[in-house]
Structures are given as structure tokens and as C-alpha cells.
């Protein structure tokens, strides 16, 4: 099972693609030395500036699923901050950069704090409003020159060399943009990056894995804002003057347009989108007036229509047309095999009461879904929770794991009262779960999905990930994911996108993910559903082995053979009320249980 036989796996350090990418970078950086017309250098300067902003949107919108129309306002924040301190106080542009970054941090944190708690579509609307407000505010402030803006901004100087020309600025702009892209790539392939990619699928699963989703939303928002602000700093010193118009809502929308056109979610798409829009804009300005006899926002019609068409025809953007045809580069997952193991929590002593549910009650309005149910789970035992459909089993799971608040009663985990705590806090105590309806990130690989479970056992943050200083931590996390996949018998599928798995395999993947959290108690919601007999037997063996290691399991299952052979004790619920509890033999013979399942009068 450890040997992968996937023929698509390539492990060469330098693939033709990498070489092509490097050649592209070298060509890009050599361009100003070649006899390229000034016009194109200027175009490329702007494309680099735009791409910086769009890179932020790739992270925010494409990866984290949060849309912002207000990025242009952050560009403005960076531009005006440096413009003001360099013109009013004669400060160095580098001090201007620092001011811009700090100001952006504060504003982004405030906007994020207000809007990110809400469901998806409030953020874009709030950013529209904030983009407009910022535009009108800057345009009315005296010390920022009102709608005329500020002039006479000094160029950036590196040592004694001043970047006064388009060609010299080109290097600064493109080095920053390419480094920004590289840092983003690194981030996406890391612990915090996976957490951000998990945000798109809603917060329930990520929180249950102990991931602080709000924190990662805020981080993605702040990073995107900083990319925009950095572009604004470059922009101010490149143009040497600022006024409000490039930072209005219109431009904010255009940035999003670039991201969508290029392929939101793809780092390369940022450059493709920025390039396509900038060049198309120029060409349209040239030939539209000749064609229609008017100038001005008629290009908007073309822009708008192209945007709609692109979304209808290829919602993944232009760059995806290229990446789709490229061979998938996959790393051999067995390289994680020898990783240093993650630290493990001390397991409870055998026989210790791990979970204690006392008179748990849940009412939805007048409906009593869970009616004063009590039971215990001790260390090293498997407890089955059975009952007809609608008996309240999944609700009970949600009460124990903190997804739903209790109406009455209490839940204790290893001597601590846990009802009223968030599902994240409970997960961090060492309780893990799977879901009745599988929750995964379909476009992430199986290995990455499973590694989400190990998230809370790692420590690498955004900065370390962007600078690639997280490899040791990363290796341990992926090593753990790999180990759990092996244990569950899915090592051969580690590289597969999770969305390609059959339902039964998805359920197994969820178990592997839950195991990665190093749980003392594992709650499994119908783990055997969708599995074939052989797979069920293998799963049963794994669960028995886990019990042997001292882990406790609580499982909801409808497959009676599976439950009867595997569990030590069974709790039966019907209509939210506990019917009985006992060993499989006792429960099997209980007339009340038979009545509940078969409808015999009792």
C-alpha cells in the first residue's frame, strides 16, 4: 500500500515547465535592455502595477472566496500615504512605504473586522460602499489637494540611484510583482494556505478541524490590501503625482475584472488578466472612436460584454485554458514518509470517562429533537449510536461537537465542561468528527484535504510560508497526513483531487482527516455508508485497532452487522429520547428496540 503506482507522478527537480517559467522571467527582466519601444515599456510598467493588485484578489477572491470591489481604494491608500509624507514633509519614499503599509493595515483590519463575520455577499457590497466613500473623501480633503491631488512626488532612490525613467522603474515594479507572485505561490502550498483554501467550502468543516476561519479570512483580506497598497506606492513614485480618479470604484471593479478574466484563483492569471485588460483598453481607445464616432466609456460596453461572455464560456478564466492543457505536476507523496512525527497529546487512561452527556436537550421551537439524553463514553471503547431516521442522532453529534448550542443539560469531555464552547475550541481539546454529508475541498488533493486535520498541530504562519521558511513544519504535517492515509488504505489516492473520489472513499478520507487531529475521541457519522463489503471489513479492522490504541469512538451507523460486531456498547434513541443502552447482545434482544425498528407493538 505504501508504493504508489501512479504513472503521472513526476519527481524531477526541473520540469520543462519550470524551465519555461524561468526563461520567461529572464526575458521579462532583460526587456528594457533590448530596443523595445518606450510605449511597450510603459504598458508593461502598468501591467506590473495592476498585476500586483490582482495577485491580492487571486488570494482573496479566487482562493478564499471573498470578493472585493474596493481594492483600488487600498491602492489609493498606499499612493496617498507616500505622496503626502514625501511632499509635505520631504520624507524618503521608503518612509512613505512604511506609512502606507501601516495605514493600510489599520484600515484593512477595521473593514475586515466589521464585514468578514457576515456571509459572503456582504463583503463585496461593503467594499463598493467603502470604495466610493474613500473616493469622495479624498476628493474633498484640502490637505490632499481635493480632486486635483498632489504633485511633485520624488522618485524612489536605491542608494544614490534615482528611478526617474520608465525603464528604470520597470525593474522595481517587476521585481516586486514577481516576488509577490512567488510569495503567493508559496503561501498557497502551505499550512496557512490550505486553511485559506478551505474557506471556500464554508466554515463548518474547517472550524471542526480547529481552524480559526475568521482569522484566515482577515489574513487573506489584509494580505490582498497590502499587495494593493504596495502597488499604490509604486504607482505614486512612478507617476510622480496622484489624484483620486485611479482609485475610484470604477478601477476597483476593473481590478476584479482582470482577476476574473485571467482566471481568478490562478497566480499566472493575475498577469494574463492585467495584460489583457491594459492592452485591450488601449486598443479600444484607439479604434472605438473611429468606429462609432464617440469616445469615453463606450469601451465599457465592450468590457461588460466580454466579462459576461468570459464568465459564461470559461468561468475559470483565460489562463485556465492554458493550464488545463499542461501536464499536472505531482510530487510523489511517499517523500513525506520519513517525516519527523508530530507531538502527540497524552491519551486518557483506559477506562477513564472521556465523554459524559447528561440530560442533553435540544428544542427547535416546539420540536424536541433531543430529549434529555444521557450516556458516557469511556477510553478505549466503541459506542454505537443507533435509531431510526430522524431520531436525533446527528443533532446529538452537533450538540456534542459544539455546532449547535444545547437547550438544556451538559456535556463534559475529559472532566471539562464543553457545552457552550465553539466547535473549534472543542476540536482543540482533542475531539474530532466526520460529517454525515461529506465536507471537503474538491479541488484540493486528498493529501492536502487530510492535512487540514493536522492544521492545529502545526505552527507555521503566513509570513514564514511566504518566505518558504516553513518547510520543516510542513513536512511534518504532510507526513502525518500521509501516515493516516496509509493507515486507512488510501495512500495510492493521495494525489487525486478529492472531488474525483467515490462517496465511500470520501468518507474514509474524512476519517483520515479526523485522525490527523490526534483525537482522544472520534465521532463518526455513518462511516460505512457507501462502502463495499471488503472496504467495510477493512474499516472495521482499522477502528478496532484504534480502540486497541486507547482511542474512544462514538459512531452513528445504519449497517447493523457493522455496529453489532464492532461496538462494545450501543445507545438506542427514538424520537429524540434514549430508548435503551447496553451491549450489542442485550440491545439486539430488547423488545422496545425491535418495536422501534420493525414497528411491532410493545
Amino acid at each position, binding site marked *: 500500500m505504501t508504493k504508489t503506482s501512479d504513472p503521472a507522478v513526476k519527481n524531477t527537480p526541473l520540469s520543462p515547465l519550470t524551465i519555461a517559467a524561468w526563461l520567461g522571467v529572464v526575458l521579462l527582466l532583460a526587456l528594457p535592455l533590448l530596443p523595445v519601444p518606450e510605449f511597450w515599456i510603459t504598458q508593461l510598467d502598468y501591467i506590473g502595477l495592476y498585476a500586483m493588485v490582482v495577485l491580492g484578489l487571486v488570494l482573496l*477572491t479566487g482562493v478564499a*472566496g471573498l*470578493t472585493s*470591489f474596493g481594492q483600488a481604494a487600498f491602492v489609493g491608500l498606499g499612493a496617498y500615504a507616500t505622496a503626502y509624507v514625501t511632499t509635505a514633509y520631504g520624507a524618503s519614499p521608503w518612509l512613505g512605504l512604511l506609512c502606507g503599509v501601516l495605514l493600510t493595515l489599520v484600515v484593512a483590519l477595521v*473593514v475586515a473586522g*466589521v*464585514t468578514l*463575520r*457576515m*456571509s*459572503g*455577499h*456582504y463583503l*463585496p*457590497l*461593503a467594499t*463598493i*460602499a*467603502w470604495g*466610493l*466613500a474613500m473616493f*469622495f*473623501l479624498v476628493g*474633498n480633503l484640502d490637505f490632499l489637494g481635493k480632486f486635483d491631488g498632489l504633485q511633485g512626488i520624488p522618485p524612489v532612490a536605491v542608494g544614490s540611484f534615482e528611478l526617474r525613467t520608465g525603464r528604470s522603474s520597470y525593474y522595481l515594479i517587476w521585481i516586486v510583482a514577481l516576488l509577490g507572485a512567488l510569495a503567493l505561490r508559496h503561501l498557497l502550498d502551505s499550512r496557512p494556505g490550505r486553511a485559506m483554501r478551505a474557506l471556500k*467550502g*464554508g*466554515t*463548518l468543516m474547517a472550524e471542526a478541524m480547529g481552524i480559526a476561519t475568521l482569522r484566515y479570512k482577515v489574513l487573506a483580506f489584509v494580505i490582498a490590501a497590502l499587495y494593493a497598497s504596495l502597488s499604490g506606492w509604486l504607482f505614486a513614485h512612478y507617476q510622480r503625482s496622484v489624484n483620486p480618479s485611479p482609485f475610484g470604484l470604477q478601477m476597483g*471593479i476593473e481590478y*476584479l*475584472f482582470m482577476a*476574473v478574466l485571467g482566471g481568478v484563483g490562478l497566480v499566472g492569471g493575475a498577469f494574463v488578466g492585467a495584460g489583457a485588460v491594459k492592452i485591450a483598453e488601449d486598443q479600444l481607445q484607439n479604434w472605438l472612436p473611429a468606429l*462609432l464616432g*464617440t469616445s*469615453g*466609456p*463606450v*469601451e*465599457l*460596453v*465592450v*468590457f*461588460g*460584454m*466580454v*466579462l*459576461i461572455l468570459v*464568465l*459564461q464560456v470559461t*468561468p475559470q478564466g483565460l489562463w485556465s485554458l492554458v493550464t488545463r492543457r499542461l501536464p499536472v505536476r505531482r510530487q510523489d507523496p511517499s517523500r513525506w514518509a520519513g517525516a519527523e512525527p508530530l507531538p502527540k497529546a497524552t491519551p486518557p487512561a483506559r477506562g477513564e470517562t472521556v465523554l459524559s452527556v447528561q440530560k442533553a436537550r435540544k428544542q427547535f421551537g416546539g420540536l424536541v429533537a433531543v430529549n434529555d439524553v444521557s450516556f458516557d463514553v469511556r477510553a478505549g471503547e466503541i459506542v454505537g449510536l443507533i435509531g431510526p431516521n430522524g431520531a436525533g442522532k446527528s443533532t446529538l453529534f452537533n450538540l456534542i461537537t459544539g455546532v449547535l448550542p444545547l437547550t438544556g443539560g451538559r456535556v463534559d469531555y475529559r472532566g471539562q465542561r464543553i457545552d457552550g464552547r465553539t466547535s473549534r475550541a472543542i476540536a482543540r481539546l482533542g475531539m474530532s468528527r466526520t460529517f454525515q454529508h461529506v465536507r471537503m475541498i474538491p479541488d484540493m488533493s486528498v493529501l492536502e484535504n487530510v492535512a487540514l486535520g493536522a492544521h492545529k498541530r502545526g505552527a507555521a504562519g503566513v509570513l514564514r510560508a511566504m518566505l518558504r521558511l516553513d518547510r520543516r513544519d510542513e513536512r511534518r504535517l504532510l507526513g502525518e497526513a500521509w501516515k493516516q492515509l496509509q493507515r486507512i488504505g488510501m495512500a495510492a489516492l493521495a494525489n487525486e483531487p478529492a472531488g474525483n473520489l467515490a462517496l465511500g472513499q470520501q468518507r474514509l478520507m474524512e476519517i483520515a482527516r479526523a485522525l490527523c487531529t490526534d483525537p482522544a475521541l472520534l465521532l463518526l457519522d455513518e462511516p460505512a455508508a457507501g462502502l463495499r463489503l471488503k472496504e467495510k471489513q477493512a474499516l472495521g479492522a482499522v477502528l478496532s485497532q484504534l480502540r486497541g490504541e486507547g482511542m474512544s469512538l462514538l459512531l452513528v451507523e445504519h449497517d447493523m452487522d457493522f455496529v453489532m460486531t464492532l461496538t462494545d456498547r450501543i445507545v438506542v434513541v427514538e424520537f429524540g429520547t434514549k430508548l435503551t443502552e447496553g451491549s450489542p447482545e442485550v440491545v439486539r434482544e430488547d423488545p422496545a428496540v425491535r418495536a422501534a425498528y420493525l414497528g411491532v407493538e410493545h
Partner: protein
Amino acid sequence: MDSTIAAVLLLDGIGNGAVYALLGMAIVLVFAVTRVILIPQGEFVAYSALTLAMLQLGRVPGTVWLALLLAGLTLVRELWDGMRTKRAWSVTGLEIVRLCALPVAAAAVTYLASGHAWPLALQAVLTLVLVTAIGPLVYRLAYQPLADASVLLLLIVSVGVHFTLVGLGLVFFGAEGYRTPPFWDTHFDVGAVTISGQTIVTLVVSALLMLGLWLFFSRTLAGKALRATAINRLGARLMGVSTEHAGRSAFAMAAFIGALAGLLIGPTTTMIYDGGFLIGLKGFVAAIFGGLASYPLAVVGALLVGLLDSFSSFWASAYKDVIVFTAIIPILLLRSLTDRHHDEDE
């Protein structure tokens, strides 16, 4: 500020607020039924005010050509889809008639009427019909192919539609601004305050429309079908409610409400081709106040926006828009504290 000024501002705010309320309700309606956040709502407002202005001037309104253009594009699109899916020609033909008959007829009548000085009320009705007919075409062309896409994607499409419609507005109406005559050119003196007839018309019409919407959604089958679609698209579809028709109806209603709003503010605001956007956005602030879900709260929000609008234009007119749009931040804060967080997938 003395009490007279306060009363004037109050009246002004309520008048504007009534219009924002209409737009806010249209936005809530469209979002509930189709999950589209209707950024281009303001364009219907501008189109309608400009159409009436053109008719008043005895010119052919650009909306005529716009409607014909969109109908033509719809024709092409339906034919293309018909060929691609190999459905029966009769089905394609029926769809085309359903979608294009009203806009083409309305455009034709408007074209014929444009040379004659019809009474204002008749021109207003014509304007309403013409702009309303555009709504379903917009849905068909831009949104229907993406009906099951995410809210986010639909929002970005909305931005594209907004750009397109604003640009088309410039092409068909030019960059000049117009005002339309008031529907009731009279004044009443109540103490020191003068109430214009137009304000009364605005308030009465808005109130009637709200009542009409309420009756439609609570008493008619079509209204209930729309509500069902809003609550559960799949379930509604399984029960035989066509989500496509629901979407088109929602857009027709939104266009109608937008057109009505355009007629109501036309006499007090000089309208240009892109002037609807900011007005529509204020409707948005109102809709967000209602969490994009509650009609009564959207109305309350709209009145607040209207009052904020008029009072801030008195105290700090340069910062008027800053104040109105930053007002959304405390509103969002309030909502984020009161809304129970829920998972957004499913």
C-alpha cells in the same frame, strides 16, 4: 437650523427615501428569487427618466433602439441554444415570442408615439412598459445561462451588465442631462412649509406599490411561486415552478419598479445616462439594512438613507456621499452582531 428647515429636509428625505425604498425592495426581490445582486438596478431608473424626457421633447427615445438591440441578441441566443440542444423549432419559436414580443411591440408603439405630443400620463405608461420589457431580456442574456452559479459569480456578472447598460445608455441617450416635468404641478402651504404635488405623488405611488407587492406575494399563485423559488430553488423546480420564468418575472418586476422610481425622481433630479448608479446604490444600502431579505426593514433603511441624504447635503454637502456610503459600515456592524452566523454553502 430652525424648525422650518428641519421640516423641509425631513420632507425631502422622506420623498427620496420612498424612492430608495422602491429600489431596495426590487433588489431584495431579485436577490431572493435569483440570488443575483442587481447592481444595474439604477440603470432602469436612468433609462426611464431619460425615455420620458425624450418623449417630452418629441424625439425617439434611445430605449427603442436598446430594446430592439436586446431583442435581436435574444433572438440570436435562442436560435443558437435551440440548434445546440436540438430542441423542436416550435419550442424555440415560442420562447422567442414570449421574450421578444413585448419589447418589440412596446418599441414600435413608442417609435410611432414619439412624433406626437401625447399626454404626459400616457407617455409615462409607455415608458413603464418599454423599460419593464427590457428586464427579462437582460435576465435571459446575462444571467439565465449561469442560473446555478455562485452568488459571487452572479455578482461579477452584474458588474458586467452594469458596465454594458451604462455604456449603451451613453450610446443611445448621449451625455446630456434632462429633467422631466412634475406629474402634479402644484404646491400646498402647510404652516411655513411648502409641500410639492410631486412629493405627494411619490409617497402615494410608493405606498401603493408596496401594498401591491404585498398582495401579490401573499395572495396570488404567481407570487407564491416566486416566494417558493426564493426559499428553495430545487424544491420549487420539482414542484413544477420554472425557475427560468421566476427569474424573468423577477427581472420584469425589478425593471418596472426601477422605471417607476425613474419617473418619480425625474422631476427633481437632472438625470444623465449613468446617473442611476448612485441612486441604485442607495437602494442597496437600504436593502442591506434589511439583510437582503426583509422588505419592511429595507423600507425603514431606505427612509433612513433618504433622511441622511437630505440632512447631510444641508450640513456638509461635499461629504454627502461619503456620509451615506460610510453609513453602511455601522449597518453591517449591527447586522453582524444580530445575525446568527450560519454556514453559507449547501
